């Protein structure tokens, strides 16, 4: 970490401001990036991190302020220009071409500037294969649209790594990744930094910041708060700077021994879907939070979606509160009180061009309607406001389009949508993806409270500390089957990783 | 001053559909010439679209301007009954041309006799290729005058020359590429095809191209004319074309409309005056048609005719 040249910032931002109508996203932000450093950018949801980076990449135009690259004031007007200047960007929201192969997606920027007039698909696929090999097992010839969101995230990362850049911006790249993939990414980041490439790293995961970054800059409400050397500070300090107060315990207390109940809320027997998963059986007891762990592509999402009848042709028994359910469509599941929070909020979780209020109400419109199915707009707004307040949603008004919210706040809208129906069982797939520490703790607290009132909670998360911190029991999925269960003291990262990857040595070793 | 003269400022309107179609140009010239001779103002009106609602709207808007009379080409007969009757009741005279609304109160209808055209064409074909030959037609279902030209010819052959064999009947809707395609196919299927009858000129252009390409010897006759078919007539690729006397249609159409505005000029030998009808009723005026051949083709160059004339 001593290779950092302290006196020569490659990127220097001063007094940058940006508003969206009445919303002031950035109010005079300063930021400084040195050569070869990994610089974390932290802040609550909606603090302005993505906005700041979008300005650096030329996607957004600042209202005022100055950006200096290599000491020269510069006006970056487009991503194309940013790319020419050597700025690479992994976006928070995945932006890939679904109808195009993985290899072409990865080399899109390269193709764009290539001097060769002809495509060389074979070379593209070979080189894509080389990069992907380090990150995960993805077929370079597959169409991106057919990949699950986690693999798309890897493609997005691979894409940035191929750019010949001096400044690399990573906006929450690990939100949907498990630790294994994340570690590969961190290795690469460190190597790049050693080569003198400067990296801006945005994440809500303090561990990642503290294990990999040199410095951290904190934003709050669009304002610059402070920049600290990671070595000289603690996660608590960073969090305090972010939220302006101390967040003491990150995870709510688990069930105590006497609280544990034998009452079974949900019982699943022999859930099977032709090729994706088979013979999945588990039960969910009253009051507990159940976790599902596994490697990327293990099939956790598929199992849960299948259970809710969102996808595939599934066989098996599902019993809720002792009553056997006959589910044919997801609508039946919702009617029975079983809901699913999608891992892909942009793809299938939210209606981005619609208002916050109509997003929150979408699961059960009857709740905000008077007799005969006439929507009561006031009731709809109230619902969104109430849930928004509960989740600490940062927004202007409930008629605002969801697309104008920050990533983490969009996630909160998605969660609000699930909570709106007072479900009996909620399956949450990466529920805190992109959510800041404070809100995350809040969401965990809400989940715990719900569990205590008898709602069944099942959490899928790629972030093992989260699973371990929140869940009373974790089931490990491996290649579409349950590989084991861990509870209490046995719930350690090592144990879970072991169960998740036994018999999968080849992938683990790569 | 003659009674066959307009009051100062008195206006007559000619209303058509697809108003940019060149067919109307000589009609309107005839209309204007008659009007000029009688000291009347004229307006050319209608809708550029093939859309009945729009034509009705434009007709009703004409009425808002309270003209003396309207020479109308109603796109469809029945939808115009009510508007025409309303016009007549409000004192605007209406005469139809080239298409009729027979159940309305319009006073006169002027057109070329499509049956006569079809009969002429049939006789000419027999004269050229004999009375036992194969022939084909192109058509445009739904357009009444084109329909009539085609069905009348087929019926005439069936009745008078039963050995004439209809081997192709294709809808090409005035689209020259569609006509090319259809004719090419008909030629393939019927190497002995001797003659074609086409009720309009657009399809004829495509048909000629197909016949020339196939190097077939087919007698082509069609109705109406375009500069291209005119050149083909001159070159002998098209045998002849039957062209309605558009100028006469407009000229006589104007006079019929004018007369309808002045029923008092006439004390007819019938009951019309006492029973409240306009005595200037003429159920049908035939404006006749011209036969365009190699010899007289030069007189049918519309561009030459319009040189120095105002189209509006």
């Amino acid at each position, binding site marked *: 970490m001593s290779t950092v040249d302290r006196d020569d910032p490659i990127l220097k931002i001063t007094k940058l401001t940006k508003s969206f109508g009445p919303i002031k996203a950035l109010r005079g932000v300063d930021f400084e990036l040195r050569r070869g450093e990994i610089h974390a950018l932290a802040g609550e949801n909606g603090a302005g991190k993505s906005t700041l980076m979008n300005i650096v990449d030329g996607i957004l135009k600042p209202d005022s302020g100055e950006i200096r690259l290599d000491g020269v004031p510069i006006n970056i007007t487009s991503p194309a220009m940013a790319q020419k200047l050597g700025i690479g960007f992994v976006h928070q929201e995945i932006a890939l071409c679904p109808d195009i192969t993985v290899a072409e997606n990865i080399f899109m920027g390269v193709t764009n500037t290539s001097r060769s007039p002809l495509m060389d698909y074979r070379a593209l696929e070979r080189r894509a294969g080389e990069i992907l090999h380090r990150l995960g097992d993805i077929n370079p010839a597959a169409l991106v649209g057919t990949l699950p969101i986690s693999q798309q995230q890897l493609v997005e990362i691979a894409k940035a790594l191929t750019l010949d850049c001096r400044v690399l911006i990573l906006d929450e790249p690990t939100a949907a990744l498990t630790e294994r993939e994340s570690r590969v990414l961190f290795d690469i980041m460190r190597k790049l930094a050693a080569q003198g490439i400067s990296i801006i790293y945005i994440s809500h995961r303090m561990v990642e910041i503290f294990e990999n970054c040199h410095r951290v800059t904190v934003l709050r409400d669009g304002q610059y708060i402070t920049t600290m050397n990671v070595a000289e500070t603690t996660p608590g300090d960073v969090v305090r700077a972010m939220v302006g107060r101390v967040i003491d315990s990150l995870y709510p207390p688990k069930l105590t021994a006497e609280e544990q109940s034998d009452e079974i809320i949900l019982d699943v027997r022999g859930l099977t879907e032709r090729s994706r998963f088979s013979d999945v059986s588990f039960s969910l007891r009253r009051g507990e939070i159940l976790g599902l762990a596994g490697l990327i592509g293990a099939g956790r999402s598929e199992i849960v979606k299948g259970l809710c009848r969102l996808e595939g042709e599934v066989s098996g028994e599902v019993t809720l509160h002792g009553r056997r359910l006959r589910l044919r469509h997801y609508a039946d599941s919702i009617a029975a009180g079983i809901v699913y929070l999608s891992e892909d909020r942009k793809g*299938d979780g939210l209606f981005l061009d619609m208002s916050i209020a109509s997003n929150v109400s979408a699961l059960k419109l009857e709740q905000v309607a008077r007799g005969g199915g006439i929507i009561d707009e006031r009731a709809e707004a109230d619902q969104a406001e109430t849930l928004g307040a509960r989740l600490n949603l940062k927004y202007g008004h409930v008629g605002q389009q969801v697309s104008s919210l920050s990533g983490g706040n969009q996630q909160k809208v998605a969660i609000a949508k699930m909570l709106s129906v007072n479900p009996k069982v909620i399956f949450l797939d990466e529920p805190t993806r992109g959510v800041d520490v404070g809100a995350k703790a809040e969401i965990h607290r809400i989940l715990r409270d719900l569990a205590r009132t008898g709602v069944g909670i099942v959490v899928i998360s790629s972030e093992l500390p989260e699973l371990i911190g929140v869940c009373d029991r974790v089931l490990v999925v491996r290649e579409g089957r349950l590989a084991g269960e861990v509870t209490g003291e046995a719930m350690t990262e090592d144990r879970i990783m072991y169960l998740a990857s036994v018999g999968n040595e080849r992938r683990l070793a790569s | 001053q003659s009674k066959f003269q307009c009051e100062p400022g008195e206006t007559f309107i000619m209303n058509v559909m697809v108003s940019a179609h060149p067919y109307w140009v000589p009609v309107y010239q005839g209309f204007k010439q008659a009007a000029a001779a009688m000291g009347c103002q004229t307006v050319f009106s209608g809708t550029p679209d093939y859309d009945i609602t729009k034509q009705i709207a434009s007709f009703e808007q004409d009425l808002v301007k309270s003209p003396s009379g309207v020479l109308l080409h109603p796109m469809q007969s029945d939808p115009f009954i009510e508007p025409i009757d309303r016009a007549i009741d409000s004192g605007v005279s209406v005469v139809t041309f080239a298409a009729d609304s027979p159940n309305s109160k319009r006073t006169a209808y002027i057109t070329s006799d499509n049956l006569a055209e079809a009969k002429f064409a049939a006789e000419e074909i027999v004269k050229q290729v004999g009375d036992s030959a194969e022939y084909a037609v192109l058509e445009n279902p739904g357009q009444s005058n084109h329909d009539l030209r085609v069905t009348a010819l087929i019926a005439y052959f069936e009745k008078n020359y039963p050995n004439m064999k209809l081997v192709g009947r294709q809808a090409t809707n005035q689209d020259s590429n569609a006509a090319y395609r259809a004719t090419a196919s008909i030629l393939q299927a019927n190497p002995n095809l001797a003659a074609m009858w086409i009720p309009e000129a657009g399809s004829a252009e495509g048909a000629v191209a197909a016949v020339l390409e196939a190097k077939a010897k087919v007698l082509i006759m069609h109705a109406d004319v375009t500069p291209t078919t005119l050149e083909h007539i001159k070159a002998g690729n098209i045998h002849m074309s039957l062209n309605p006397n558009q100028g006469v249609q407009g000229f006589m159409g104007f006079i019929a409309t004018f007369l309808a505005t002045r029923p008092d000029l006439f004390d007819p030998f019938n009951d019309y005056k006492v029973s409240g009808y306009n005595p200037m009723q003429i159920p049908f005026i035939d404006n006749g048609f011209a036969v365009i051949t190699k010899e007289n083709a030069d007189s049918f160059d519309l561009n030459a005719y319009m040189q120095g004339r105002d189209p509006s």
Partner: protein
Amino acid sequence: MDRTGSGAAGTIRRLLRMRETGLILIILVLFIAMSFASPYFLTWNNMRAMAMAFAVEGIVVVGMTILLISGGIDLSVGSVTALAMVIAGLLFLNGVDPWIASAMAIAACTAIGAGMGFFVTRVGLHHFIVSLAVMVIARGLCLLGTGGRPIGLYTLPPEFKFIGQGSIGVIPVVIVIFVVVVLVFDFLLRRTTMFRKVFYTGSNEKAAAYSGIRTKKVVFLTTTLCSGLCGVAGIIYMARFGSAQPTFGIGMELNVIAAAVIGGASLSGGTGTILGAILGTILLSVVSSSLALLDVSVYWQDIIRGSILLSAVTIDHYINKRRG
């Protein structure tokens, strides 16, 4: 100026925030310009003629707008409208009571819509290609049924013709029907849970499915509804014209889609309002009528019409952008 006013000022502010305000302004400007340009423009008869010219098509626009919002499109509206006239006309000529004949024709059109819905939702084809095929087939059925000739129906009973030709007071029945259809569907679309699902489906079909909405059912129903409304329009046209025309409505689809799009409907689904679409219809229709009224040379009419269309959407776009 920043305080939230109540009463008139508040209403104005709310009006200014509406997406439709730009269009309303453009139409107003057009009206003012036209009433200076022609003394006949602001007459009752001219207004009536203009309204009659778009009222029935407006019913089709309503159906198309809802379909567009759900993410679909329908090129067959013109021929399905014609088919409704032809079916009802033929049945009537064969002795069926005109009301029953009309109901059967509307049912037939609805069935055609259901057929298209089937191909789109069950087979998985695109609306564009399915409705194009149906456009051709329905036109063929019209020709087959009539031999290409219009069917004269002046024997229709007067109480039936009344829906197309009658007036209630000074207001033509056609316009009354149009206004009722517009108000009903505007209300349904803005306020009911049933139609809200149309927006969800069009906005993000997958997210709608993940909200428990049977999106295929929604698309099936909007497709069916659009054809059903074409049936209704066809019957009204029949009563108005006293005839059934097999060639009616050729090219109508582009006009109808254009009206909806000018009014803010998106071709990729999820947005659109009935009010906007109707304003779009009015705009297109008033421009055509005005050109006819002003006796603009036919050779210039298309050029002017196209240019006004382009300017109007450009201005509307900028007004909306400015407004935020």
